[in-house]
């Protein structure tokens, strides 16, 4: 089977050599000068530089969130915010320097691209280094490039959509930080009526110690169009806390459909604090599919704003929290218009003392008549020392609505393990099978390659969890 994103176990060797690879990098810490350096290195237009500086001012003013996981150990001045490694964006793997190419070969990227992807962006440290879109889609007007390139090539689109309406810099400390130091990410535009029937994928890779990655992904799916975008993120094992603070903004226009799938597998010292949001217009559909593995602390609540009549959101998420890990994840859906519908399925596995929290917000505004939503939170805990919390917030300001909410905490019982062992499975295999069954509803929505991979990653993560 394919190997993309499966880096953890093979990583140690290859990443050490790559750690200090850079053409230009800023000093550790953050200041106006550093932000200007980033902007200058990218040769950005003045409006973007201004935007960064304004965001930086917000960042200084806004305090860290006081709810959720403990972020007090996050030292913003110890971090390196920008590390450029490549002089150009390559369009062929042949041009990619051998060391980076090897890293991406090892996680199976070029092979996946050949076999089943419509386009690929590879990002290493702060910027994209590789981008390629099959000409079939390019000819239909699809744009798929890294966001830095989009600032240069499609300034009108970027100016219109970049942190203006969907996620604003001043929202919270990390969105402000992101606005100041963002780098890389994907820009995807699908023109009216174009249905891209193969997934597009971006691979992010963060290797440098004590650094931050702040990619900005901007997706616009125009009227009646559809697309499936996949993001895979990995970072090797280091012990200096790194920060990942991405922003994803998605615009689903009338009758359009966007599926955003992400499998994140960060090393266990990363703070993974993201803001992802989609604005969905009339009869549009936004689907979020997420698998959150690794990292030290993850805060992630993809949000769908159902703005147009009949818009729909589907959120499916699996979070795995092992020893020393804290997963604070969930979903937010704001129903603003009549007949909007949403389903949220959130699955979490906590083991070995890991903490996972479902934090949701379901808001139905006045006038969203006929809105319907179903929220289902399932937690699985194979032991007695882990923690699972549910914080579902439901705010309803309209009476003509249908809402369902279910929360279940499942344990792997001794009887179940015994039953499976009595069929010849080892204890670990028995637990794995129960876990597989638990995540099956999410797994089955993934393309086969990812389903196999996610299953494998979760098993790898839980291996040896039986003490």
């Amino acid at each position: 089977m394919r190997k993309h994103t499966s880096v953890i176990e093979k990583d140690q060797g290859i990443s050490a050599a790559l750690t200090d690879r850079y053409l230009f990098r800023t000093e550790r810490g953050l200041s106006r000068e550093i932000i200007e350096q980033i902007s200058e290195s990218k040769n950005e237009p003045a409006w973007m530089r201004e935007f960064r500086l304004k965001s930086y001012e917000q960042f200084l003013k806004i305090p860290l969130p006081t709810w959720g996981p403990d972020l007090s150990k996050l030292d913003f001045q110890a971090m390196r915010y920008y590390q450029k490694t490549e002089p150009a964006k390559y369009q062929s793997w042949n041009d990619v320097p051998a060391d980076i190419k090897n890293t991406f070969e090892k996680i199976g990227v070029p092979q996946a691209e050949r076999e089943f992807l419509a386009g690929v962006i590879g990002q290493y440290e702060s910027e994209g280094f590789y981008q390629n879109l099959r000409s079939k889609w390019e000819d239909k007007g699809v744009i798929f490039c890294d966001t830095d390139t989009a600032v240069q090539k499609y300034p009108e689109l970027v100016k219109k959509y970049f942190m203006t309406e969907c996620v604003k810099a001043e929202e919270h400390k990390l969105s402000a930080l992101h606005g100041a130091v963002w780098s890389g990410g994907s820009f995807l535009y699908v023109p009216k009526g174009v249905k891209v029937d193969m997934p597009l994928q971006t691979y992010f890779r963060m290797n440098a110690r004590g650094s931050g990655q702040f990619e900005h992904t901007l997706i616009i799916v125009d009227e009646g169009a559809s697309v499936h975008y996949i993001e895979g993120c990995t970072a090797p094992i280091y012990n200096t806390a790194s920060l990942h603070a991405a922003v994803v903004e998605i615009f689903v226009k009338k009758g359009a459909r966007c599926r955003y799938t992400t499998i994140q597998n960060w090393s266990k010292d990363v703070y993974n604090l993201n803001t992802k949001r989609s604005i969905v217009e009339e009869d549009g559909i936004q689907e979020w599919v997420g698998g959150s593995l690794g990292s030290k602390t993850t805060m992630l609540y993809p949000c769908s704003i159902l703005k147009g009549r009949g818009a729909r959101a589907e959120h499916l998420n699996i979070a795995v929290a092992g020893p020393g890990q804290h997963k604070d994840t969930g979903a937010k859906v704001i129903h603003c218009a009549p007949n909007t519908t949403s389903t949220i399925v959130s699955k979490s596995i906590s083991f070995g003392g890991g903490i996972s929290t479902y934090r949701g917000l379901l808001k139905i505004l006045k006038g969203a008549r006929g809105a319907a939503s179903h929220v289902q939170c399932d937690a699985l805990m194979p032991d007695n020392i882990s923690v699972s919390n549910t914080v579902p917030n439901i705010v309803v300001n309209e009476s003509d609505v249908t809402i369902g909410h279910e929360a279940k905490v499942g344990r792997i019982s001794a009887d179940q393990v015994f039953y499976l062992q009595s069929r010849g499975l080892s204890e670990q295999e028995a637990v794995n099978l129960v876990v597989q069954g638990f995540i099956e509803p999410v797994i089955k929505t993934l393309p086969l390659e990812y389903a196999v991979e996610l299953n494998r990653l979760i098993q790898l993560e839980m291996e040896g969890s039986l003490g």
Partner: protein
Amino acid sequence: MSTLTIKNLHVRLENPSTTGLRAGYPSTTQAATGHGGAGNPILNGINLVVRRGQTCVLMGPNGSGKSTLGNTLLANPQYKISRGSITFGKHMLSKMKTDEIARAGVLLAFQNPQTVSGVSVTNLLTAAVRNFKGKGKDFKMADFREEIKDTANTLKISKDFLSCSLNEGFSGGEKKKMEILQLSLLPAQLIVIDEIDSGLDIDALKLVAKQISRLRARGVTLLIITHYNRILRWIKPDRVHIMHKGKIIKSGTSTLATAIEKKGYGDYIK
């Protein structure tokens, strides 16, 4: 094929905190709060031999310890062997772990099978079969999948049941059929069948009994636990044992089962 020999077997409930499972999974049956109570003896010196290829029936009133014996054979960590031994051919079952026992060819059809969400019987069987040795060099998973379907067919288990969550929302009878399906497909040498006849209607019972007869014809050694006689209409046992309060109190041939059918246990339990 080998002989099962149980010698002077004493079994008590395991203290839940010292359960063999390292991760300390909670138990749904909560041994500590059950009727028995932690540490209370359940089996009090069982002696029993089931010769290779034989079919033995174990009868006895409710609560006499039949299921405990079946579970102990498979080393359910809820139960602790305080004295005695269980051997199956060269295998010292009383010293082995559950999965090792299963792989030695000793399988149990549960009185109350577990539900596993998101895992179908096909998932379970394909995962399990890999662990069995001696399934032959020319073993192919695709053939095995076909075999699952064929056996399901003979048991009149509809296709949907092969791909949906195992036992989730199944009726008592459907669960029992699933048990027989699984045991028929794994390379078994000794099968313990615990109360397969309860919850089955007459047609299903006939199907299951036929399947058990097929296993018997294959040379599988059988220990059939029941407290009715119903299934014995189709399966004539070689030996019948009556269990009461954790002991075998009477052994005989199939006429013993007929006698009990007529007069109940009253004559044997004082």
